[in-house]
């Protein structure tokens, strides 16, 4: 299909005549990032996913503000409340601003099961920017304003978007707080593995030869050991006395110890492809230093690949953290991560009696999917012909 090569949408040949007055013209003058954006834009799922991720990270950053209640605040009267129904129409059929009804709690004396029913009055209107528990926004400003809630506070009636857990703690608040650890762990882990991956992959790809062989062997070797058993073994070695922050960091390092191999392969592959490119040769003939060649010429040209690969690796990190915490080898309470929440939720009594505590599972799935779509979109945008 030699001729069809010309059907490629983007030929950036520089010497095109000014006389060509056509719709395709802007393509030729657009900077690369703009080109990427145009291509990325076409990937609808990636676009939607980007919005989702921005939302998730917003929640992660401002979880105290977003969460209507303190995620650790237990309340007996709200034990295992199902997600609160939000109404806009009362029993008489009148419309109002969104509101919730009061929960009435009934416990079966036989089975001890708790059920909640709604009482048609009073109505508790949902408001924005209500006062709640005290916190420091971004660790700087003391405030008690929360994004939404019902002004009466948790004593009388709660607004539990995702229900409450066995101690009456608001699942929405917990999932929001969990986002902070889980989502950043993915990011931090990926950047850590990027650092190792770029250095080793770069050496491997750029210098080749013996270095390449050694590093490739190491990569193959690491990948030979099944990930989860390896991670399990490493996490079991983390002392349980570590603080939440230390465990968090430890887990991140452990995950990166394996994950860097993927980054290194991507980097190496790009380096190999680029090493022979004319512009690199030209730079070398010009007498540029190796470092300069790498930083100035090669790195920018495959930054897009790295970003795509990074994005595709984050969900692996998130899943790994979830899995490890789930079997009790990852983060531990009082840390709140999605994995920790899942560990608390993954039992038959939750499935049978309060399935909504599986909400963090959906958060995991959605964020993993979103990262995958975004990664796919970025990869396609970075190079539409590479798969």
């Amino acid at each position, binding site marked *: 299909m*030699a001729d069809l090569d010309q059907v490629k949408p983007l030929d950036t040949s520089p010497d095109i005549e000014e006389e*060509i007055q056509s719709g395709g013209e802007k393509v030729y003058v657009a900077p690369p990032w703009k080109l990427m954006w145009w291509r990325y834009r076409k990937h609808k799922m990636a676009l939607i996913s980007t919005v989702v991720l921005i939302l998730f990270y917003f929640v992660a950053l401002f979880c105290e503000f977003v969460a209507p209640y303190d995620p650790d605040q237990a309340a007996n009267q709200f034990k295992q409340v199902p997600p609160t129904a939000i109404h806009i129409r009362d029993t008489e059929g009148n419309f109002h601003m969104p509101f919730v009804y009061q929960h009435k709690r009934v416990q079966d004396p036989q089975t001890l099961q708790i059920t909640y029913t709604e009482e048609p009055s009073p109505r508790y209107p949902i408001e924005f920017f209500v006062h709640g528990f005290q916190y420091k926004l971004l660790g700087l400003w003391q405030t008690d304003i929360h994004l939404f809630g019902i002004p009466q506070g948790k004593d009388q009636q709660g607004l539990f978007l995702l229900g409450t857990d066995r101690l009456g703690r608001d699942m929405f608040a917990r999932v929001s707080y969990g986002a902070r650890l889980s989502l950043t762990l993915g990011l931090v882990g990926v950047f850590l593995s990027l650092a190792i991956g770029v250095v080793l992959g770069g050496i491997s790809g750029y210098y080749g030869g013996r270095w390449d062989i050694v590093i490739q062997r190491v990569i193959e070797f690491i990948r030979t050991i099944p990930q989860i058993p390896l991670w399990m073994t490493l996490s079991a070695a983390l002392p349980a006395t570590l603080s939440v922050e230390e465990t968090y960091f430890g887990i991140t390092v452990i995950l990166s110890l394996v994950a860097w191999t993927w980054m290194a392969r991507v980097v190496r592959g790009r380096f190999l492809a680029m090493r022979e490119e004319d512009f690199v040769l030209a730079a070398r003939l010009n007498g540029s230093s190796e470092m300069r060649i790498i930083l100035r010429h090669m790195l920018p040209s495959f930054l897009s690949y790295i970003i795509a690969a990074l994005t595709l690796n984050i969900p692996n990190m998130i899943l790994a953290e979830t899995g490890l915490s789930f079997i009790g080898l990852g983060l531990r309470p009082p840390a709140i991560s999605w994995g920790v929440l899942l560990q608390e939720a993954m039992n038959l009594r939750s499935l049978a009696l309060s399935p909504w505590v599986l909400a963090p599972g959906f958060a995991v799935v959605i964020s993993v999917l979103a990262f995958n779509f975004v990664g796919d979109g970025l990869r396609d945008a970075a190079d539409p012909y590479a798969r």
Partner: protein
Amino acid sequence: MDNTLLEVKNLKTYFFLDEGTARAVDGVDFEIKRGQTLGIVGESGCGKSVTARSVLRIVPKPGRIVEGEITLHRLVAKQDGSKMTDLIRLTEVDPMGSLMRGLRGSEMALVPQEPMASLSPVHTIGDQIGEAIRLHQKVSKAEARAKTIQMLELVGFPRPKQRVDAYPYQLSGGLRQRAVIAMALSCHPSLLIADEPTTALDVTTEAQILKLMRSLQQELGMAIMYITHNLGVVAQMTERVIVMYMGKVVEEANVDTIFHNPLHPYTSALLRSIPRLGMKARERQRLASIRGTVPDPYAIPKGCSFHPRCDKKIRGVCDQQEPTYIEVEPGHKARCVLYKQ
């Protein structure tokens, strides 16, 4: 007897892409006589390959023939032994139906551009040639193998009996192309579509392959649609030539006429861009490439599509009105406002 083998009328093959519609072939007419060699010349992207694939009905997605007719005049043996022609409207049959599949490989065969990539790397050449034979002829495996060896011999394969079980990577480029030719000829097609069969080869091998094809043509009496951008090869191989630019035929004539009396500015430009023996040194200096490149297929310039690159363009005419395709002299057609019927 009807001497026509293939007629193409107003063929339009478009590619529907997100970026827009690429009019790869945009109204092509030509005809091939039996045993004749037709050269199709043009730069990359002019639509020559798509034309060939349109004839074979293997235009890849998202391409589609949107208009036009392709008619194959097939010779069918009657019961009394005499032959009659059977007209098949290729544009109207199901491209993956049994009729079309029966024609592909047997009536019309393809010799593609890249011998390196045109053979499956994980099958022996014997397997791949034999498969073509068994597909169109009712023969046993052993017979197919014998026939394969025979074909390999015909295309000048050294030690065909051993080489029949070789994998493509074990063969040189030239041998691979010979294998492909053997495959194409294995069912005695009446039309051989050679799509730049020698571009990927070195000059010596190219010469050998060309020679081989000519001798085989004489031996087997088939017609060849020879697609190339190399005018030298055109001169050597073909009898009639069409020149394509941006999906349109801009000129058609006998090979001598094209070389000695090109009408279209594009043809002239093409001719100027090749060195010729006996060229004077002064002229040699004027050997120049055609300026610019083929425009974007979604953005075909208004008027004559060649006008941005044409040194004979008339402002206000060439960039406004599309020239018509006319027979300037008998057997010599061109598409340029400089000529009138």
